[in-house]
């Protein structure tokens, strides 16, 4: 049996769907749902599924998902009616509310499913956030278009997606400018420099004891602020952004690599000594592999920092392309759908960047205890 509260919730959702059938969708001129046979059928089906869901605990998640999907489809379909978009009345919102209640309960049911099988659990861990995210986007869409929020305040996700698809060449150009030129070159430069300095500092203990506290201190400073200086030094084009990115990446890399080089224990060191390994070999075969998890940690931190640095640096002046440039210029022109499209681009780039590094980490540090399950 599923908990009584949840069962009542499902029944309420079903009841609300039925009640919405008799309620006005928008002003008087708009025919109610009862006049649209397909939608009527869909809503009745969704209400039935919600009402039956509590009966079978394991099936409830599937029933709920199907009914929520139907609810979403119906409400989105209704928005295509220009009499409803922007002036939806309480009958419409009752539908949305019922769908929301049902979907929330469905997610709860999904999360409560217990499986011993690893593949199923993996699938569950993937499905729940995806459904949750999709439902949030649906709510955003419905709220913006149902209430008729002006696009200069908040564009609907669909119009952002449309804008994204329409301006692919421009987005591609911005991607090349910001991510491939500024971020990648600065990232490689900054991480490389941090790594090399860390190796040098590791050889000279005095330097290390001086650099480590300093590096920790500087990592905590708002380094993005150097953007205007770099723009002055290196001009408007990508080298100035790369410079900002390089400086931002340098300190986390330095601090993390130094921390990583110190993790190998005395027993391992003694073993290397008993092999009569020269310092270079000890570094290559013991200290660097041991430091890899720390180095990858820095690489991950830096992947986000690098994108932020490049985008903010573009606020201080750029040639006529780049993600940050486009964001600042389109905000000024109040075309927010373009801005959201750029943000989606930045988000995708950030996740892809992070994902690649995480994959590399998995491949190179698979020996590490944190990957044992």
């Amino acid at each position, binding site marked *: 049996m599923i908990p009584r509260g949840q069962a009542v919730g499902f029944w309420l959702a079903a009841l609300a769907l039925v009640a919405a059938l008799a309620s006005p969708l928008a002003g008087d001129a708009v025919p109610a749902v009862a006049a649209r046979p397909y939608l009527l059928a869909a809503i009745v089906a969704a209400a039935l599924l919600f009402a039956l869901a509590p009966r079978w605990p394991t099936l409830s998640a599937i029933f709920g998902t199907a009914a929520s999907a139907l609810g979403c489809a119906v409400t989105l379909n209704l928005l295509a009616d220009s009499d409803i978009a922007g002036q939806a009345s309480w009958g419409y919102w009752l539908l949305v509310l019922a769908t929301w209640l049902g979907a*929330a309960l469905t*997610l*709860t049911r*999904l*999360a*409560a499913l217990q499986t011993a099988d690893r593949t199923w659990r993996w699938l*569950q*861990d993937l499905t*729940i*956030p995806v459904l*949750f*995210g999709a439902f949030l986007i649906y709510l955003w869409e419905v709220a913006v278009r149902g209430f008729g929020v002006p696009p*200069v*305040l908040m564009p609907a996700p669909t119009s952002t997606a449309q804008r994204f698809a329409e301006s692919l060449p421009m987005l591609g150009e911005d991607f090349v400018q910001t991510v491939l030129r500024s971020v990648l070159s600065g990232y490689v430069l900054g991480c490389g420099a941090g790594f090399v300095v860390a190796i040098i500092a590791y050889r000279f203990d*005095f*330097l*290390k*004891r*001086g*650099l480590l*506290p*300093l590096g920790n*201190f500087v990592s*905590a*400073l*708002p380094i*993005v*602020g150097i*953007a*205007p*200086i770099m*723009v*002055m*030094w290196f001009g408007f084009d990508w080298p100035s952004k790369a410079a900002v990115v390089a400086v931002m990446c340098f300190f986390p890399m330095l601090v993390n690599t130094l921390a990583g080089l*110190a993790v190998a224990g*005395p027993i391992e060191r003694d073993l290397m000594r008993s092999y009569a390994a020269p310092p270079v070999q000890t570094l290559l075969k013991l200290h660097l592999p041991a430091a890899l998890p720390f180095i990858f940690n820095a690489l991950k931190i830096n*992947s*986000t920092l690098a*994108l*932020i640095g490049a*985008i*903010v640096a573009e*606020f*201080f*002046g750029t040639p006529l392309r780049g993600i*940050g440039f486009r*964001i*600042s210029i389109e*905000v000024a022109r*109040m075309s*927010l759908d373009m*801005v*959201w499209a*750029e*943000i989606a681009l*930045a*988000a995708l780039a*950030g*996740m892809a*960047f992070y994902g690649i590094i995480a994959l590399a980490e998995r491949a190179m540090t698979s020996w590490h205890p944190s990957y044992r399950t």
Partner: protein
Amino acid sequence: MTSSALVLPRPAWRPAFIAERTPIVVVVAIIIALWYLAAILMNAAQVRDAFERDEVKYTLSDVIAGTLSAERPVVPAPHQVLENLVESVFDYPPDSPRSLLYHSWVTLSATVVGFAIGALFGIVLAVLIVHMRTLQKSLLPWIICSQMVPILAIAPIVIVVFGAIGIRGLFPKSIISAYLCFFPVTIGMVKGLSSPDPIQLDLMRTWSASKVQVFAKLRWPSSIPFLFASLKVSVTISLVGAIVAELPTGAQAGIGARLLTGSYYGQTVQIWAALVAAAIIATVLIAIIDAVARLTAWRMGASA
């Protein structure tokens, strides 16, 4: 590093304090020396050009003196930055737009308000996530995912949208700060609130403790170290958020505004001074949190 048995006792005449600080002082001194060198080398061309334009005879020492006191240097010398900092802090009344104190205050207030909102929101969210399986499964992956996204990019939107509905000034900036800094708090607190061992949770159950009691007497106290660690991270992020939030509005006031006007009018020294001010604010904020953390640890009876 090496096992403690191998460390020789330090001679009494060289206390640990000095031994620890020497490398830092030396490295800082080297950096300052390099800075001066860079100032001389990078400003030299500019100064020499100026001398040649005026057709004045000049010596090497003239050039060096010129590089260290140029009006709009490529690299300002450390003492110029310091001078500008002191001048813009002390020479103007604190409410004048030329005073750095005024700009720092504008940014600091947005930072602190945003930090407070963000930290509170982050803690509440973490408490909800720890207690609700659905949220943990559905929301937490998105919060982790959003760490990989350059969230700062949405700062201009927030400013413009709030501006369009008539909200300006401190509040939109704080929202950006709050939005940026609640992620580390949430993630740290989720980790902290679920840090008690299953054994400890079982013990609470044998005492038939209620959920509230488990939270108040076990989960919350054991999450405190995590809380302060993430607060330290997020206070800097909050400052960065406030500074960046001042950029898209054309920037009337604040450290971000100083940076922007400095870059528009080529006032290099002003930019550097604003940067130093931001660094000082960050340091002070972190030091305050550190002090509160120590005090709390001491009050809670930690040994260290």
